[in-house]
């Protein structure tokens, strides 16, 4: 056996499959040079009669902030919204497709699509194109069947209904906070405060999140948008 042979000089040979880090960070490694990323913090919490969705507003190319006031909460249908994270281009394209299909579906069926349908449409696109996309999406909204519901669709195209969802690079910093503060059966105001507080905390620690917080409250009777400027955050940057 080769290892019995002691004639090799006593120099350390690096293991053939030793892990070498290439210096790229996790959230930007799949982006092409110059591609925009919504390295971001997004969040959605359903409450009794609706959903609160929230996001930061920083869009970065590398370490340059390309847009400090972007709008990452996009509308898919009258009462269905999604929060976008990952490549800005990919998520915009996905949003456009889902909007198109949902509006078609609404005409064909004669009624508003459910959040579940929207989420699964998004999942189909994310899953079938998983090799070419870098998109993490949270779909949330109100429909007559489930009332408020939230679906998390991370990289790869998993679609999973959740009691609350956080996503984006900044979400890693607030898992503990949200786990400790989230309670079942929160009301609208409580859910909104939790979203704002958590996103502020994530923005305070994540370099790829920042700017302002945009929230949307989706209920049966309408959508209410709110804008929290960067100097009035519940927790400072």
């Amino acid at each position, binding site marked *: 056996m080769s290892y019995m042979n002691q004639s090799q000089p006593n120099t350390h040979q690096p293991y053939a499959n030793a892990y070498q880090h290439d210096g790229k960070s996790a959230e930007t490694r799949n982006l092409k040079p110059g591609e925009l990323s919504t390295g971001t913090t997004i969040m959605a919490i359903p409450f009794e009669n609706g959903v609160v969705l929230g996001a930061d507003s920083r869009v*970065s190319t590398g370490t340059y*902030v390309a847009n400090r006031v972007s*709008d990452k909460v996009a509308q898919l249908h009258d009462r269905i*919204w999604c929060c976008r994270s990952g490549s*800005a281009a990919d998520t915009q394209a996905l949003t456009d497709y889902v909007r198109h299909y949902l509006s078609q579906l609404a005409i064909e069926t004669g009624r508003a699509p459910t959040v579940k349908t929207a989420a699964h449409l998004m999942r189909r696109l994310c899953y079938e194109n998983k090799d070419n996309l870098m998109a993490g999406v949270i779909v949330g909204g109100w429909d007559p069947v489930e009332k408020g519901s939230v679906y998390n669709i991370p990289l790869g195209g998993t679609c999973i209904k959740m009691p609350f969802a956080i996503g984006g690079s900044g979400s890693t910093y607030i898992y503990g906070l949200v786990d400790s503060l989230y309670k079942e059966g929160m009301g609208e105001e409580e859910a909104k405060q939790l979203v704002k507080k958590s996103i502020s905390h994530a923005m305070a620690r994540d*370099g*790829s999140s920042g700017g302002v917080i945009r929230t949307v409250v989706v209920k049966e009777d309408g959508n209410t948008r709110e804008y929290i400027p960067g100097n009035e955050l519940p927790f400072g940057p």
Partner: protein
Amino acid sequence: MSLSLASGGSTRAASSSVTAATERTRRPIVTGTSVLAIKYAGGVMMTADTLCSYGSMAKYKDARRLQSINPKTLIGGGGEYSDFQAITELLKRNALEDKCTADSLYDEDASEECAREVWNYLRAVMYNRRNKMNPLWNDVIVAGFSAQGEPFLGFVDKIGTTYEDNIVATGFGSYLALPILREKYREDLTEGEARALLEDCMRVLFYRDCRALNKIQIAKVTKEDGVLISEPYEIETDWTSASFVVPKGALDGDGGW
């Protein structure tokens, strides 16, 4: 293991045969971002934020990136924070030695290195490390007065490039702040004007640099008072422009970008 900064770090090739034959330059882990400096009527002023990032994480929010070396010289550093701390320690040690071995206990001016001398020495240190392919991963600004008593501002980077000017900046500041500083620079800037100018630039950097913080320190070097470094304080930011508030993600919007 060698403790001398300029000798290239631990004596790698000589240390055991267990380590690989060649050591490459490492990548920075804990990093500071821009430092800006400008000459004004009374001396020199420098500013930096108090953030050290751990990759993309804003980990250390009260890091001090402006350090006084001797009563006449101030340095500010961006890049790897541990290397900056090592540089600070080295320069302060030199200053202490100078003080203790001075010809006279009272003649302080003669024994203190002026800023230009510190800058030159630092150039040698950085270039020497660069030659060993093991740089101190920093961009440093040296501020103070030259031996002739003129305000001095010098820049040294991790490969030993140096230059001096009336306005210097490192990192993102060299792209975003330098043009602003160059437009507004005058030889007779008052202290208030210089400070407002630097704060404006730090505000722009906070908006546009992912690794910046809105908590900053300002330091000045003057003939009368020597080096004065402020406590960290927050700068104001503005998010109220109408076009910011208007959301773009609705069905009839442009997609939200």
